[in-house]
């Protein structure tokens, strides 16, 4: 872990400081709502444009939106089901296995102070 | 053999004759029995007889071992050289036709003469070398100790 932990947000790089907005209370909700609004707008646009897909179902209004939403939900629940069956401890393949070990620190920049270009 | 005076005198006389005979055999080899090999042996015999009757040192004064070595090599060079000369004239190796282009059978004579000379020289050299090699070997047990 880096010893150069900036004491306050002021030490952060400019871009980083700008991005801290997302962690402010309420920002998440704002983002979520913005996304919802954007989706709604897309649905409206979808109504307006003409579509000539290879399959008829593609031309159905909001098909992609519904498909995308359902797909995502399927993925999440499918993954949860899979986790139920496939989950193992990290030392399942033995204490020496690759899954168990941390990346050797001497090959990272963590222990080296001044290798930054 | 210091006291065999007759032998010594006769040998001295004969040596010259033997050499002469060797030359005869050498140069008549292509028409009559004989040739380079026989001539070479006869030639060597002259020196061997001399060495036997007098002694090795005397013989080697006349014909040092070094020279005998070189003679052996020289003869081969004469033989091979003949072939090379015929090649230089644009003929195949040892094609004696080269020596008298208009008249191949005459060329043949010249060629055989040259080649036989080479044989004779080599045989002389080799015979003497072998003789010297055997006689100059110092026995590990000297004659007196037998």
């Amino acid at each position, binding site marked *: 872990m880096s010893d150069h932990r900036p004491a306050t947000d002021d030490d952060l790089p400019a871009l980083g400081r700008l991005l801290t907005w997302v962690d402010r209370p309420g920002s998440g909700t704002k983002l979520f709502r913005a996304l919802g609004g954007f989706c709604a707008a897309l649905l409206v646009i979808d109504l307006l444009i003409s579509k000539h897909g290879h399959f008829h179902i593609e031309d159905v209004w909001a098909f992609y939106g519904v498909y995308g939403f359902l797909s995502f939900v399927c993925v999440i629940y499918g993954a949860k089901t899979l986790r139920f069956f496939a989950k193992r401890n990290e030392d399942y393949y033995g204490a020496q296995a690759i899954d168990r070990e941390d990346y050797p620190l001497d090959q990272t920049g963590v222990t080296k102070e001044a290798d930054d270009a | 053999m210091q006291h065999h005076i007759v032998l010594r005198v006769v040998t001295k006389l004969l040596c010259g004759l033997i050499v002469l005979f060797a030359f005869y055999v050498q140069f008549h080899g292509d028409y009559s029995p004989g040739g380079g090999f026989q001539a070479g042996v006869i030639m060597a015999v002259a020196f061997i007889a001399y060495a036997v009757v007098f002694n090795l040192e005397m013989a080697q004064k006349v014909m040092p071992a070094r020279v005998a*070595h*070189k003679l*052996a*090599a*020289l*003869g*081969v*060079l004469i033989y*091979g*050289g003949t*072939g*090379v000369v015929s*090649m230089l*004239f*644009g*003929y*195949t*190796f*040892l*094609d*004696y*036709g*080269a020596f008298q*282009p*208009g008249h*191949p*059978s005459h*060329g*043949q004579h010249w060629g055989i003469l040259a080649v036989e000379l080479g044989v004779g020289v080599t045989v002389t050299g080799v015979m003497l070398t072998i003789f010297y090699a055997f006689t100059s070997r110092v026995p590990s047990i000297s004659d007196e100790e037998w």
Partner: protein
Amino acid sequence: MATESVHDVALTLHDQLPILQLVVPFLAAPLVMVVGAGRGVAWLIAFLASLAAFAISALLLAQVIDGGFLSYQIGGWAPPLGIEYRIDAVNAFLLFLISGVSTLVLPFAYESVKAEIAERNQALFYTCYLLCFAGLLGVTITGDAFNVFVFLEISSLSTYAIIAAGADRDRRALTAAYDYLVMGTIGATFFVIGLGLLYMMTGTLNMGDLADRIAPQTDNRTIQAAFAFIVVGMGLKIAIYPLHLWLPNAYTYAPSAVTAFLAATATKVAVYVLLRFSFSVFSPGFAFENYTYELIILPFAILAMFAASFIAIFQTDLKRMLAYSSIAQIGYMLLGLSLMNASGLAATMVHLFNHGITKAVLFMGVGALTLRAGSSFYASIRGMGRAMPLTAAAMVVGGLSLIGVPGTAGFISKWVLVQAAFEKGWWPVAFLIVLSSLLAVVYVWRFVETLYLHEPARDAAEAPLTMVVPIWITALACVWFGINTDITMTAANTAAETLLSGSTGLAEPSPWTSALPAGEASH
């Protein structure tokens, strides 16, 4: 008669190449005797002659590598009466190997001979070396059966002498040379008896002519006996197991340069003679010949591959180990030969070449080690890999090639050999080839381990440059011919085809009427 013709076409230097191949080293030998007082001069003449021979052999090979042949009539006497030199892909390839190895060994020999042979004998040594070299070339190049015998004797006699030259270092070289002399003479005698029997039945000595005259009388017992004599006689020169007994001592006690040269060439030439007689003079269709190869040569070849390898594994002297390994490797060549098909022959031809350069590297390396370590016993070369990194590294390359690791010349020949065995349907034989390669791994590992994984027994400098450079050129050749197989495989395949096509193209169309040379008769 030949001499009665008027010669109208002047031969150019180019036409004279076949004879020059032989004449240059052959005349260089007496020349060394006549002028070679100092060692430097003697060496220089020998080297220049060898270099010239190498250049000539390359020119010759280039002319015949795609098939076809050159014929040269000595003294203008047409075959079958006269002696004919006949060069096709088979012997051009071998000439290339012999003169190439000689040209590489001679620079190496300069220092090695200086250290191992007394000063006064050195000019004589180079003379004998050149004679041996010329003799081997002569055996290879000639198309006359008796001429083969003559040159065989020239090379053998000079070989006995140069092996005996090792006596300055180890007196056992004398007995080794003497044993070889006795055995070699017996071998040559057998060979000449075989020739005599053939001459008795055919009245000719020209190989092509012989082939034509033998073909109609294969049931003749005399001819069959002649074949047996020739095979056994040449088998001794080849060192077919169990006729190899002269070889270990001769190779061990000969001067290093001589061993390197002989191991790479002498037995190969004998194999060539066997090939020539088995395929060109006799024809592979003869039943008795097939039986001989299948029932006698093949088992002994396999025996050699294993027994000699085992002996090599247990040796304590590197040079002697390599000598035994040579016997094992000869087994591979004979194996390819006894397959009696085109790919088998190609394997034999390519192994002749590849094993030649491989052994040249190894024996030269041993020579360099001997120069610095005093002897080639494992005990004294221990750890020399660190003291002599260049030499040792080249020897590792040679060792890899000996095993047949991909990327080295040795791999190519074993690969082709295994393929040939498959082609013939002899799976067990292919398996045995691979198995015996494992034994090679063991003995190669032994010397690599000795060279590298021990504390050096003594301080030693790297071998002189005149040794390291030829060793490395040869080592790189091992790698080069392991990757680029253009020259070797083309030559070997052409050679195999030439040999298998039997006597066609060898014999003059009508021997007696064509006794006159091509020129017009003058009277």
